[in-house]
Structures are given as structure tokens and as C-alpha cells.
């Protein structure tokens, strides 16, 4: 039994959109919404990976809306897997190919194995399986999480990736509680990078910046071993905005610093694109309000909600040991070398996520006159009251 992973396909960076391959391996046949930025990364990912690829798809939008019987958009071989099974499907597929090639039962050649999952399937239910896959260093695989920040296929329910305060069908604002989604979004790529030191490549991206995303897919597939990619996908239906604004919102998520772009390659973290400019002080972060106000899911926000959101994003940039990536600071000092370690932000006061109380709209005992909505929040996706004849 050889311990090294099978050979990885070597894929060069695309570098510019004009140099992207013309061939499409994800074509017509899907039934996703207008402006869907979860379908676009499927197309870009398949384009970047090329024809010697097997794609595994968990249940979610990109299964139900995407892959209808007898009208599959997939030109490369594709197989459904269960909601929490992106990690295990990738491991099983890669292990199967590796065994057959080693034993001479199948032609020995590099084949890409990509398992995609949504934020519900990957960041919630399937997190353990993804974590296990990232420790299986003997297998070449890419876990590709498309994050549209809700269980969008089942009618927009809160997931572990739904932003704080966002309206979903499981977190509707009401007369007593304005904020029903009281959890801060889980930092999945940072957590996976921090916890899986043998994983050679972990990156964040967005289809709003397609070349960066495709090059990260190629870097992941070429790295050898298990890799992970997190992709933020604006969702017109779930985020409540006009479909024409999808790309704009994807870019704003980065420009406001809410969603940093980076890659962790062989244990070294580097920011990419706009995030690199922000980190290097060459560009100011835009206020989060510019991003949040454009989305109906935050239409119930009061000033204090915007302020709280801004404070949490500021924390990511000013207090995290690697801004936007590793979600803690260091109490120091380190004494590993004779020199005093230059660790930033020692003993910073933090809004500790383990207690709730004075955050806006949060407290279970709402402050009188401050908790609930002062106007009715309208769901612009709702089908309407059947009795009204709409």
C-alpha cells in the first residue's frame, strides 16, 4: 500500500478571463433562479477542472434545482450524494479510484474528484465528514462549499452560515423579537485551515470574481491530497435583492471586509485580490451598511444593528491574530525564541461570543420599546396570502 496520494492533475493558472478555456462541462439543463451565483461557480469550477473530473453533489439547490432527471447539465460524470456526505463521498470516490489503479484494475491516470455541498450540508450537517476527509492525506480530492448563507433550496432557512440578524423563514422578525438569527456566522475556511495542518490547500473565493475562483480551484486540484474551497454566492431569493445585483453584492462582501479572500497553501496564508489591498492598508474597508442595506434580509435592521455588525467585522480585522482567518487573538507573551514575540493585540477586550445580553435585539428579556419591530417586515418572496387572490 503506497501512502502518497495518487497523482494529481497539474493545472496552470488561468490568470485572465480571456484565457479561460472555452469548453463548458456544466451546460444548459439546470433550473436555477435568475441571478443565481451558486450555479455560476459550478460552471466555473467545471471549466477550471476540465474533462478528467468526477463531480459529486450533495442534496441542496445545486442538486434539486440543478440536476433534473433527463436534463442534467453535467458533461463530466456526476453523482448525487447525501446532504452531509460531501467529505465521505469524495473520500470513497478517490479511494476507489486509487485502489483500482494501484491493483491494475483501472487505467492509471490522474482524475479530479470534486464534491460540492451547500452551507447547510457542509458547514452544518457535513462538517465532521469534511474534517475527516481533510485528514485523509492519501487521497486527492476537493471539497467545494457553495455558501449562499441559508438552506436556500428548502425555502430559505437559517444555517450555520446565515449572517447575524438576517431574516430567513426560520428567523422572521416579529413584534417581540426583531432579531431571531442571533448566532454569528461560523468561520468555516479559517476553522478548517487552522485544524487540518496537513491539508495542502484551503481557499475562499466567490464567483463574483471568477478568475480568482477558477485559479483557486486549479491550485486546489493540483496541490495533491485533500483540499477545501469556500465560495460565497449571493442568492437573490434568499437575500432579497434584484438578481441584477448578484455580482455587485459578491464584490461588496469583500470590499466591506465581511468576507475575506485568501488561500492557505502548504501552511502559509495569503490574502488575494481586494482583501490583499485592504490588509496591506492600500484600501479602506467600506462600511458594512453599504452591503447590508442592499439586501431585504436586513431591512428590519435599526442603527444599533448596523453598528453591532460593523463592530463584529472590525473585530475580525483588528483583533484576530490573522485578520478574517483565525478567530482569536493571543494573550502572550511567547517565549519560544529569546526575542520577545511580536504578537499583536495582547489582552484585547473582546465582545465574548459566549454570553449574550447587551447586543441589540438579542436578549431573551427584550428591553421595553427596543426589542421588536416598529413596522411590519414584508417578505418580498412570499407567494402572498392565498385568500387575497394573489
Amino acid at each position, binding site marked *: 500500500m503506497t501512502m502518497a496520494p495518487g497523482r494529481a492533475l497539474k493545472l496552470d493558472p488561468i490568470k485572465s478571463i480571456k484565457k479561460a478555456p472555452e469548453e463548458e462541462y456544466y451546460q444548459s439543463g439546470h433550473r436555477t433562479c435568475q441571478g443565481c451565483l451558486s450555479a455560476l461557480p459550478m460552471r466555473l469550477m467545471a471549466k477550471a477542472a476540465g474533462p478528467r473530473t468526477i463531480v459529486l453533489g450533495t442534496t441542496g439547490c445545486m442538486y434539486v434545482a440543478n440536476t433534473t432527471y433527463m436534463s442534467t447539465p453535467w458533461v463530466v460524470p456526476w453523482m448525487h450524494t*447525501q446532504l452531509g456526505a460531501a467529505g465521505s463521498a469524495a473520500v470513497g470516490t478517490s479511494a476507489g479510484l486509487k485502489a483500482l489503479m494501484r491493483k491494475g484494475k483501472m487505467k492509471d491516470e490522474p482524475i479530479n474528484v470534486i464534491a460540492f455541498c451547500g452551507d447547510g450540508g457542509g458547514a452544518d450537517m457535513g462538517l465532521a465528514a469534511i474534517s475527516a476527509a481533510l485528514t485523509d492525506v492519501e487521497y486527492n480530492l476537493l471539497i467545494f462549499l457553495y455558501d449562499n448563507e441559508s438552506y436556500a433550496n428548502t425555502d430559505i432557512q437559517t444555517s450555520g452560515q446565515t449572517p447575524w440578524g438576517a431574516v430567513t423563514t426560520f428567523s422572521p422578525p416579529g413584534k417581540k423579537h426583531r432579531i431571531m438569527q442571533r448566532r454569528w456566522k461560523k468561520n468555516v475556511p479559517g476553522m478548517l485551515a487552522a485544524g487540518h495542518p496537513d491539508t495542502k490547500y484551503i481557499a475562499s473565493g466567490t464567483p463574483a470574481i471568477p478568475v480568482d475562483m477558477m485559479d483557486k480551484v486549479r491550485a486546489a486540484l493540483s496541490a495533491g491530497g485533500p483540499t477545501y474551497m469556500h465560495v460565497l454566492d449571493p442568492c437573490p431569493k434568499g437575500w432579497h435583492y434584484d438578481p441584477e445585483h448578484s455580482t455587485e453584492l459578491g464584490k461588496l462582501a469583500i470590499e466591506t471586509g465581511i468576507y475575506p479572500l485568501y488561500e492557505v497553501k502548504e501552511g502559509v496564508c495569503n490574502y488575494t485580490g481586494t482583501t490583499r489591498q485592504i490588509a496591506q492598508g492600500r484600501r479602506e474597508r467600506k462600511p458594512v451598511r453599504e452591503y447590508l442595506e442592499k439586501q431585504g434580509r436586513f431591512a428590519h435592521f435599526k442603527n444599533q444593528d448596523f453598528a453591532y455588525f460593523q463592530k463584529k467585522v472590525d473585530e475580525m480585522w483588528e483583533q484576530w491574530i490573522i485578520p478574517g482567518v483565525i478567530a482569536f487573538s493571543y494573550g502572550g507573551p511567547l517565549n519560544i525564541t529569546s526575542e520577545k514575540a511580536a504578537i499583536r493585540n495582547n489582552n484585547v477586550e473582546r465582545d465574548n461570543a459566549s454570553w449574550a445580553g447587551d447586543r441589540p435585539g438579542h436578549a431573551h428579556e427584550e428591553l421595553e420599546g427596543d426589542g421588536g419591530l416598529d413596522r411590519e417586515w414584508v417578505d418580498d418572496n412570499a407567494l402572498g396570502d392565498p385568500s387575497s387572490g394573489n
Partner: protein
Amino acid sequence: MTMQETEERGGRGTEKLMTGTQAVAQAVRLADVDVTAAYPIRPYDGVMQAVAKLIADGDLDAEYIVAEGEHSQFEICKHASAVGSRVFVGSSGVGWMYAMESLAVTPSLRLPVVAMIGNRALDDPGAFGVEHNDAMAVRDLGWQLVWVENAQECFDATLMAYRVAEDPRVSFPVGIGVDGAFITHSQTLIKIPDQEMVDEFLPPYDLGDRLLHPDNPISIAPQANEDWVMEIRKQTDDAARRVKGVIQEAHDDFKRIFGRGGDNPFFEEYMTEDAEYVLFGMGSLSLPAKVMVRRLRDRGEKVGFVRLKWFRPFPTEEMVETLTRFEAVGVVDRDYSYGSPKQGGVLFTDLRAALYDAEVRPRLVNFIGGLGGRELTPEMMDDMADTTRRAAAGEDVPTVRWIGVRE
């Protein structure tokens, strides 16, 4: 081939003292499994310990993955199977239930995963010992389920499982029910054939045009909804109707090559030729049942025992033909089915349904016993036989009775 030649062929290979799980592992080795995934739960996990050692020693060349839960364990094997790997997996009790989502989709994907189920009581409260409810939870889903009696049958059933599962007319997963502790952890002498004989019995795994590979770029299991799901279900139903014939073929080949396996693949009869009543059950309870039959026969009782091997597919016609010869049948269930038609066991409920159309039906009584791994003793078997005898004589006896339980 004469009987003597068959015996000589059956003797080719080696004879070793082994537990049930070790015997399964030997069959996994000879089947040249490509991918296996492990997760610990007693009592099945002995098989993964044995498989791990075979791989460590270089006796089996397979990818060996220690999963982070049974759901992943079964998903890993399901997907390895889809790219053409022969896989082996297994679990017990609540571990099997934790994998339930994967267990549900594997037969409808028509992937021939072979699993050993070290039968174990479901929680709560925790119990290591045998009950059959774990494996039986998948009885409606397309899993083919076979129960074994001893370590030799563990070995034989595993080879049979691959042969039947991978037959293109079938392409279903097969679960091998191995009673926890009584078989998983009990040693008996078993015959292990050589590789050449196994290769004669078991052809290579070939998914044909269903292989997931860049040279065969198919989409597997897209969302079908009401447009097509019924047609797909019907195909699965058609395949399920073919399994019995394939088992019979495989059994005939098995007997020819290895010289073992009994008169028929589906059940074993023990001292039934002139029997007026029989006990009926699956798995390790056959041992105390056979002791009971011998003892009562010494006293002149016309009693016998019938042990079912294949529970899915249920051999309905064979059961009707065989069991209608008797006045009464006492079904011993190592399981329960709360709220079922007579609130008896699963096997009893299925057998009642199977016998409904028979022209002459034997009287059926049911015993629930040996739950949570409690021993079913020959004395309990005597007790059950006595109730069945009275049922045969037309006496008024309870339809369902719990055996060996403190009141």
C-alpha cells in the same frame, strides 16, 4: 462429480479455528476487496480488526479508511462501489441506525455493497448482546439479508453475498446478519478454500455501463420527482423479484465448487421428516433448538427445527411448501415489532403473511426471547416446543409469548 470428489475439492485449502468475524475477514481477503471503511462499535468491529491486520500484513491489498461515523463509513463504501471498487463494510445496533440514510439510498442506487451486521440490541438502555431489530430495520428498502449459524457460514455467506450482490440481474447490497457474541466472538473450525476455488466461484466486479468514470460520463441519481420515481421504483421491484433465482444459481455453484451449503440456499431443516410440529428461527438460536430436538426425540416427541437463512428475499413459496407439512410452527423471534398485527416479532409477522394463501395453514405461535443478548437455553426451547405441541394438538395457547422474562 461424485460425492467423494466434491468432498475432496471442499477439503482443498486450509482448516482453522476462527471466530465469526475472523471468518468474514478471510472471505473479504479471498474476495480481493478494494475499499473498506471502519468505525468502532461492538460486536461487529472484530471483523474490522481482522481486516486491518490482513492489510497491515500485506495479505489484502485494499484502501482502508477509518471513518468519523457510520454515516460516512457507509457513504465512503457506497461511492467507492460506484467507481467500480469491491467494498466491505459493517456495523451493529445503533451504529447501523446512524448509517440509516446511507443504508436507504444504497439499494436504490443499485450498488452491491456487502455489509456484515453484528446483530446488537438497539439503545436505550444500552446492551451489547444480540437482537435482530437493527438489521431488520432495512428489510423494506432493497437490502438482501442473510442470517448465519456459525463461523463457517459467516465465511460462506460472505462469498455468496458478493456473488449475489454483484450479479447484474441483482445489483443490490447484501447484509450478513451475524448474532452478536454468540457467533461474532465464538470460535469454530472452518474450512478456508484456496484462491483458485474462490476465483472460480466469484467473477470480478463489473458495473458495466453504470460505472462512474470520465470515460463514461453519466449522471447518477438526479432529482426525478413524480415524473419518474415510480418507474425507477418498479425497476427496483423487478430486480428484487430476480434475487431468489440468482441465489439458487449461486448456491448450486457454491455447492459444486466448495461441497457445502445444504439442500437449498434459503433454509435448513433439522429432523423434520416425520415431525408434527417445529420451531422456526434464525441465527445462533439454532444450537439450543437442535439440542432440544434431539432430547425430545429421545422421549418420542415428533419435533423438528427449521432455520431460515435468507430473510430478504423472503422465500415465500418454499416456506409454504415446507411449513404446511406440520401441524404447528413455533416462531422464535430475537426481535420485536411493537404494535404490529399480533404484536409479535418481525419474523412471525412476515411468516404469517407468507402463509396466508396456503390451502392448509399450520397453526402459528410466536415466542419473543433472547433479547439484549440473553441466552436462549435448551430448557427454554423445551418450553417453546411444548407450547407448539399443544398448539398442534388444538389446545388453546397464547399466540405470542415472551420467553425467559421476569414478571
